[in-house]
């Protein structure tokens, strides 16, 4: 697909390497000049992984797996340790069997049209911005796109989405603040059906996963949109702020209890945060990362490719 061929490797790399203290530079430091895999090296690797928000438990697992793999191998050069570590990390990110929508085929969309994507996440994660970028991407891929503004709660949510829709040159369905979000979603899908829209993206209000009533609202949205389009939503994307620490894992767990999450979008990776929580989310919940965001402009949406991510972290 067009988008895949279009990955801006340079931007991704720039985004991920802006930081002065890069994770894997540190790893190189830790292991360079040491031919044997000693405990201090592993300790230093642990520090580096944990500092990337990978978490104590997952970091320990990664290190254990790497250590076991290196047990039977004589080649413990710096390059080999790194490539083993990379492989272990990449495999975790590849472990999810869920399909990746960044790679979706024209046939699939045609089959479902409207293909419905629901976007959820905690407050300020980057949902609306991501939707603007996604709408733009699909539009450029040649699809007709419609956005539904089901954030009827946050002040000026409609206005924000309007601006993004204008940038992406797509239409938005919206209602007055305070309206029932499910009814906005319902109307959006009805409109999409009548007007033969290919892809519908629905924005939702930011909600903390601890708020039972707001989480139930998501269940309701899902139930209501099914009345118009039985297969909806085709995708539910959870947007996670790349700065988030271990709480992101709880977020993913909790959202999953109320609505099936098919993919992750990790935002704000243009800073110095690494978004290492994705390792546990991928392995524990079998949710793949579909996209990463590395800035605030339309072009800053990247398809997520584990190999690229891990490599960009290393370089």
């Amino acid at each position, binding site marked *: 697909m067009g988008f895949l061929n279009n990955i801006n490797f340079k931007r991704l790399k720039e985004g991920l390497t802006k930081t002065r203290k890069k994770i894997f530079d540190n790893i190189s430091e830790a292991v360079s000049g040491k031919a044997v895999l000693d405990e201090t090296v592993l300790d230093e690797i642990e520090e580096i992984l944990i*500092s990337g928000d990978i978490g104590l438990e997952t970091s320990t697992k990664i290190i254990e797996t790497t250590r076991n793999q290196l047990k039977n191998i004589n080649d413990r050069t710096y390059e080999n340790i790194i490539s083993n570590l990379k492989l272990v990390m990449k495999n975790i990110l590849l472990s999810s069997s869920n399909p990746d929508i960044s790679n979706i085929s024209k046939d699939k969309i045609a089959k479902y049209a409207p293909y419905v994507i629901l976007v959820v996440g905690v407050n300020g994660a980057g949902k609306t911005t991501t939707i603007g970028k996604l709408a733009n991407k699909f539009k450029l891929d040649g699809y007709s796109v419609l956005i539904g503004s089901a954030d009827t709660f946050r002040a000026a949510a409609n206005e924000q989405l309007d601006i993004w829709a204008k940038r992406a040159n797509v239409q938005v369905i919206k209602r007055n603040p305070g309206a029932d979000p499910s009814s906005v979603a319902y109307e959006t899908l009805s409109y999409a059906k009548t007007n033969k829209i290919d892809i519908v993206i629905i924005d939702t209000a930011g909600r903390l996963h601890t708020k039972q009533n707001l989480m139930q609202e998501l269940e309701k949205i899902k139930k209501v949109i099914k009345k118009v389009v039985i297969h909806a939503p085709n995708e539910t994307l959870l947007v996670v702020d790349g*700065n*988030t620490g271990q709480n992101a894992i709880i977020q993913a767990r909790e959202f999953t209890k109320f609505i099936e999450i098919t993919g992750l979008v990790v935002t704000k990776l243009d800073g110095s*945060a690494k978004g290492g*929580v994705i390792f546990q989310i991928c392995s524990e919940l079998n949710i793949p990362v579909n996209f990463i965001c590395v800035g605030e402009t339309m072009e800053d949406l990247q398809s997520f490719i584990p190999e690229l991510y891990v490599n960009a972290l290393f370089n």
Partner: protein
Amino acid sequence: MLEDLTLKLDKALKKITGQGRISEQNIADSLREIRRVLLDADVNYKVAKQFIEDVKSRALGKEVLASVTPGQLITKIIYDELALLMGGRNAELSFNPSGITVILLVGLQGSGKTTFSAKLAKYLALKKRNVLLTAADVYRPAAVDQLKTLGSQIGVPVFSAEESKDAIKISADSIAYARENGFNTVIIDTAGRLHVDENLMDEIKAIKEKVKPTEILFVVDSMTGQDAVNSAKAFHDSVDFDGVVLTKLDGDTRGGCALSIKAVVNEPIKFVSMGEKPDSIELFHPERMAARILGKGDVVSLVEKAQQQIDSREAEDLEKKLLENKFDFDDFLKQIKMLKKMGSLKSLLGMIPGLGTKLKDSDIDDKQMIKVESIIQSMTIKERQNPKILNGSRRKRIARGSGNSIQDVNRLIKQFAEMQKMIKMFNSKSGKKMMNNYKNLRIN
């Protein structure tokens, strides 16, 4: 029936025996556990390490109260240090006594600045300040609209310049406007920015130069992970902020970034923001935050309670007796009384992590304790000190005197004999191993 009391005593014994001071060995496990807790709470790796080192070196050699384990004590010390570190000086907002108080809000994208600026405006308006909000986020789509909507909800005017993309000029103009129109407080909401974005960091520095804020507050999402130290430090280096605001604390994040940030910039945390409504703003409470990070508030309060209520002299005596194998019914009674002083048995046991939930349906009541107490109290001094003389007729008398059945009395005496045996063995070399058996022992 006495299972729970035994359990309690088991704990007490473990605490008393041979662990008088905090040493490297007797807190190693606890420290490992605390490290895990801190890292899981998103305390920065380096900060956690340093913090634990500091506390440990200060705690080594400290006397351990008879009623707690060294591990519990170190947890308590860590808790106290956490609260101390996160609290401290200058948590109050400062105001400009003569002119306009200018509060500048800065932070990363999506951290909650706009929502918080409305909350702060409302908070200060309620304190009879004349507040103006300034919409200086010229980048995020509809950020100005958002602030305007919030302003009208709380009845605070918002200064904005629709067509302008010059955040520095807007900020400066808003101060002039405030001066002309009798406002004594201006809150400037700025665009979210990443600390690695040099242009935007230059912009925020320029705003600072221009408006000379009374207070600069760094607004940070409490769910932030390890990188919090980097962004906080970069912002501090650039604008030297005066305080921190922790947002989204109404979620279930443990909020370890609060400790990390405090540790690297040493500025006070002034407010917490915990909801989407304009009045969900609170002053920062370091103790609450410490308990939240440790997730162990209950152990802490248990230790505190124990420290308050237990007469350590009495405990020392008891310890000695235990070591000399002279533990008798009198001491047993004292032990029970001590436990009772610490509150109801149920609430006490409920505070021990892991036990609390298990206890819910099991039926321990303090009546059991009262029963034991009444039996012992019906013994003569001689009998208490030398249980061996408790023959059939003495037992019958005690049962009658205490209003219990002879079976109850027999059971208690039997259990006590076993306990004595246990103590003896525990004091012997194989003590450690015995301790495990003791743990599994059920007396019914």
